[in-house]
């Protein structure tokens, strides 16, 4: 591994399908051992970008470098990159161990070593004992693990994951998120992960690239993506955000940073305070969501943890006059372009 070059470097990458442009000029560096997520709505170009790194699509313009070597025109089977497909793409006529060992077999790795490494990979995804099952005899979560083992057994420079948890139910998905992150730490392979699920992106990634319209809108740590969204699109796509126009400037503030101040309460010191009327109250169990129409214009959503909430504090607040307050440093001005 070369330390000075990033694992993946993209420069001015463009991909068009007929009249539509799927990827409209992307520059990106992904470091070694990084868990990097491409996040965006469907049609944002994230999967196309991944497929170009894998070598399934060739860019119309631009440069793709893997570990400092130009790989723009290198075919998929000659790239040191492996993919976990959204539909897993397990070979239906092969059992689990042959699926996992496929990459080693075509690389003519001796049988003994192949067996040892395949078993170790299966062990890593906790599927020991399933060696002779066929893919059709596995559950969705197990197939997902086989697909993962089949990819990491080759010890690639970069592992590409195309919405690998998309077909799993919520509980299994959350378990696999933790497990994926854990596996990535242990093997130390660069992961490039494509998802449209912002929670997934925030939980697992070292860095997140938010994509829209074939362009990268922002590349940052999960914390900064959430706390310092660079554009209206990012603010709206990651979590729920309040967008207000004050003095001709776009300001955003997250609902959980907005304090709801009812009669007899005092707003926090130094906070920006506005008056308004509660138009909607939604009780969500752990939290209650209040929507407040502000006198100065616009709506603001405030979240309140239900620590000592009484029944009349929730639905009873509807239609009441309240104040909302947030600390100035919790509100950010954003550019409306995006």
């Amino acid at each position: 591994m070369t330390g000075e070059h990033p694992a993946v470097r993209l420069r001015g990458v463009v991909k068009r399908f007929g009249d539509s442009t799927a990827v409209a000029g992307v520059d990106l560096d992904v470091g070694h051992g990084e868990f990097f997520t491409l996040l965006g709505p469907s049609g944002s170009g994230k999967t196309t970008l991944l497929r170009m790194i894998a070598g399934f699509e060739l860019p119309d313009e631009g440069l793709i470098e893997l570990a400092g070597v130009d790989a723009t025109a290198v075919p998929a089977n000659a790239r040191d990159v492996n993919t976990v497909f959204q539909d897993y793409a397990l070979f239906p006529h092969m059992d689990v161990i042959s699926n996992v060992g496929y990459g080693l077999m075509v690389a003519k790795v001796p049988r003994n070593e192949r067996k040892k490494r395949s078993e170790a990979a299966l062990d890593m995804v906790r599927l020991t004992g399933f060696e002779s099952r066929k893919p059709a005899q596995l559950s969705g979560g197990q197939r997902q693990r086989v697909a993962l083992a089949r990819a990491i057994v080759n010890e690639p420079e970069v592992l590409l994951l195309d919405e690998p948890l998309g077909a799993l139910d919520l509980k299994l998905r959350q378990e696999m998120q933790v497990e994926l992150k854990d596996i990535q730490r242990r093997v130390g392979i660069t992961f490039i992960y494509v998802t449209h699920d912002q929670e997934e992106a925030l939980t697992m990634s070292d860095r997140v690239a938010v994509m829209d319209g074939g362009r990268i809108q922002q590349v940052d740590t999960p914390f900064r993506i959430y706390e310092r969204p660079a554009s209206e699109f990012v603010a709206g796509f990651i979590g729920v955000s309040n967008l207000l126009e004050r003095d001709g400037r776009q300001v955003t503030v997250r609902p959980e940073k907005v304090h709801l101040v009812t009669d007899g309460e005092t707003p926090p010191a130094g906070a920006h305070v506005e008056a308004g009327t509660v138009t909607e109250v939604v009780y969500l169990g752990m939290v209650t969501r209040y929507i407040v129409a502000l006198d100065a214009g616009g709506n603001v959503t405030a979240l309140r943890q239900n620590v000592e909430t009484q029944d009349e504090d929730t639905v009873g607040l509807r239609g009441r006059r309240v104040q909302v307050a947030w600390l100035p440093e919790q509100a950010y001005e954003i550019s409306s372009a995006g």
Partner: protein
Amino acid sequence: MRRSGLARAGLWMWVAGVLLFLFVPIITIVLFSFDASKIETWPIRSWTTHWYSVAFHDAQVRSSFLLSIKAATLATLIALLLGSLAAFGVHRARFFGRDSISLLLILPLALPGIITGVALNSAFQYVGIPLSLWTIVIGHATFCIVVVYNNVVARLRRTSSTLLEASADLGATGLQTLRYITLPTIATALVSGALLAFALSFDEVIVTTFTAGAQNTLPIWIFGAIRLGQQLPEVNAVVAFVLIIMFIPILIAARLTGSENVVRSAEPSRRT
């Protein structure tokens, strides 16, 4: 859904009636092939395997049987090669006129045999190719290709294209992908297509009459023997024998196409 007992019984009787309609003639022939009498009368009074012995030692039956086997084997081999290549081409490539080519490939099966036969016959005469085993093979290949093509194309359509991408992604060359992924995936489709093609070629009469020279294939011999009416019990024995020979590959083909469920259930359910 609940059905009354009467409706159920009616349904069963209907099914039984259809099956009888289909199979009584065939069973009759098999029974009469064991009839000792030269004139077919019911009920059969004495039983014999004499006609099988006669058929077995009949030089004409032997040579025509051999010719049929040769023609069917060669036509099937050609169909396997050309049919699967055509299926790959139509499935993988996107080009202008692709749908028309797909239709043209299937057309020979729908075309009446008499048209195929006459057309081939005049084409051979025009070019000056003497009628022989090979002209029979070419004639049979026209519709055998379709059977293989249809089978393979249907299988390819149901196979996820990401399988090939996954294979390449894991480092396989094009040849390795063909050997380890593509061929195993379409293997049962190839076998069932080949068996059906063989069966189709083996009992073909119409195209064969126009493409065979002086030689007889087995169906042609049977056709002639029935018209002459001198060897009816022997014909029965030959037909019964052919029936058994044909039944085995068709059964295998049916089993193979039935076992596709395994392949199908491993396919993706959704894509964004």
